[in-house]
């Protein structure tokens, strides 16, 4: 295995960060590395934005199906980026006098509240519809024991969540539902999380051992 500079850097920084959790002497170096990682994450957001613009710009240029929506996206992105800066026109334009600065200015708040939040909640509603449809089609699949268990657990959980209409006695569905959600579900979720944690550790160790090089050659 050829040890390239990127591999050496990745392994060394990773080891120092990991050991810094256990060795107080390396704590300051670890914190510095973490700070640098934070800055890189911020840069990654900007890079992602430019990549988004580039991809949609190419779609517009190539006339790929859906290119009008790419125009809308590009215009929206530029508008939202511009909105916080309009507050600097306050001294010159009365409309922007109390516009404010930063992402909490009038324009950005308006867009966020009446566009982004609305669209986001609408998409969540769509997800509910899709989930309901997918949920009641489960029996189309070949009936397996795990599928039957899933159906039963989902039904009981729903029964436990539903507020009982007035007049209906509580037959213990809420208790059963709560128990199902807090005992078997949690136990299973813990087991899954345990396995995921092991997988995460294994992935990290593979990176430290240079077996995985997601950063490239």
């Amino acid at each position, binding site marked *: 295995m050829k040890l390239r500079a990127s591999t050496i850097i990745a392994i060394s920084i990773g080891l120092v960060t*990991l050991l810094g*959790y*256990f060795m107080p002497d390396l704590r300051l170096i670890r914190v510095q590395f973490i700070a640098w*990682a*934070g800055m*890189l*994450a911020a*840069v*990654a*957001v*900007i*890079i*992602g*934005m430019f*990549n*988004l613009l*580039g*991809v949609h710009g*190419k*779609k517009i240029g190539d006339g*790929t*199906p*859906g290119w009008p*929506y790419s125009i809308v996206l590009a215009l929206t992105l530029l508008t939202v980026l511009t909105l916080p800066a309009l507050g600097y026109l306050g001294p010159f334009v009365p409309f922007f006098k109390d516009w404010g600065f930063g992402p909490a200015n009038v324009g950005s708040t308006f867009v966020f509240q009446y566009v982004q939040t609305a*669209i986001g909640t609408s*998409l*969540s509603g*769509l*997800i509910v519809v*899709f*989930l309901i449809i*997918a*949920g009641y089609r*489960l029996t189309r699949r070949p009936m397996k024991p795990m599928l039957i268990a*899933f159906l039963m657990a989902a039904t009981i959980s729903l029964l436990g969540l539903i507020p009982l209409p007035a007049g209906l006695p509580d037959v213990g569905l809420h208790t059963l539902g709560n128990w199902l959600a807090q005992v078997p579900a949690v136990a*299973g979720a813990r*087991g*899954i*999380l*345990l*396995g*995921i944690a*092991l*997988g*995460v*550790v*294994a*992935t*990290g*160790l*593979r*990176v*430290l*051992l240079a*077996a*995985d090089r*997601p*950063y*490239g*050659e």
Partner: protein
Amino acid sequence: MAELLAPVFVVVFAILMIVFVALGWRKGARPTAVRDIEAFLSLPTTVGQAVETGKRLHISLGSGAVGEVNTAAAFAGLTVLEQISAAAAVSDKPPIVTTADGTAMLLAQDTLRQVYQQQNALNRYDTASARVAGLSPMSFGAALTTTLSDESVAGTVLIGSATEEVVLLTEAAQRAHTTTLAASDNPATQALLYVTADSALVGEDLFAGGAYISRLPMHVASLHAQDVMRLLVGAAIILGVVASTVTR
């Protein structure tokens, strides 16, 4: 004592991985047997269908970001990306990779470029193949609903961190009559995928892509090491429960 538990755990894990790798290198070592995972068994069909129909394969790294808690899931997605893109790259339309994070997008671009370079087809590499579909999870999911139809996608493979927005992707895949293989490190999302996706990976199976697809030695050794550690942790839990019960 408790402070040493974590480093010991990590060291033991690393040693187990190295030992299993070494055992696999012995002369006459039998190929490691791993249990069948239905989702990975159907993956070659999905890839082959994409290649033969002249359509693309869509590989998504999810809405997780590199450098956050979902970094490992993103790396697992990059591993799978590298392996299946090597096969899907011969299609008339190269695969596309979508992410919701700029860092993951850069890593995906580099992975694709390496794949094409290894195949001496660097001229076919398109930097736009790896893209940021949306900067937030919900916008990421919304963008994928149109990507499947606009990009002539034959199948979707999602390996990474995702939340409820993945339902938008699976629903769009169903409407486009394409298959979906998805995995997430979020148990709640796994439940959603179990219901909506064609093939869903449950538990930590999303980290097993490298072992199941290409039988990479280190990945296979990792699986075995995970199994051993899982047994150890389970045994420790049981012993702890017994001990605390006894001491009370």
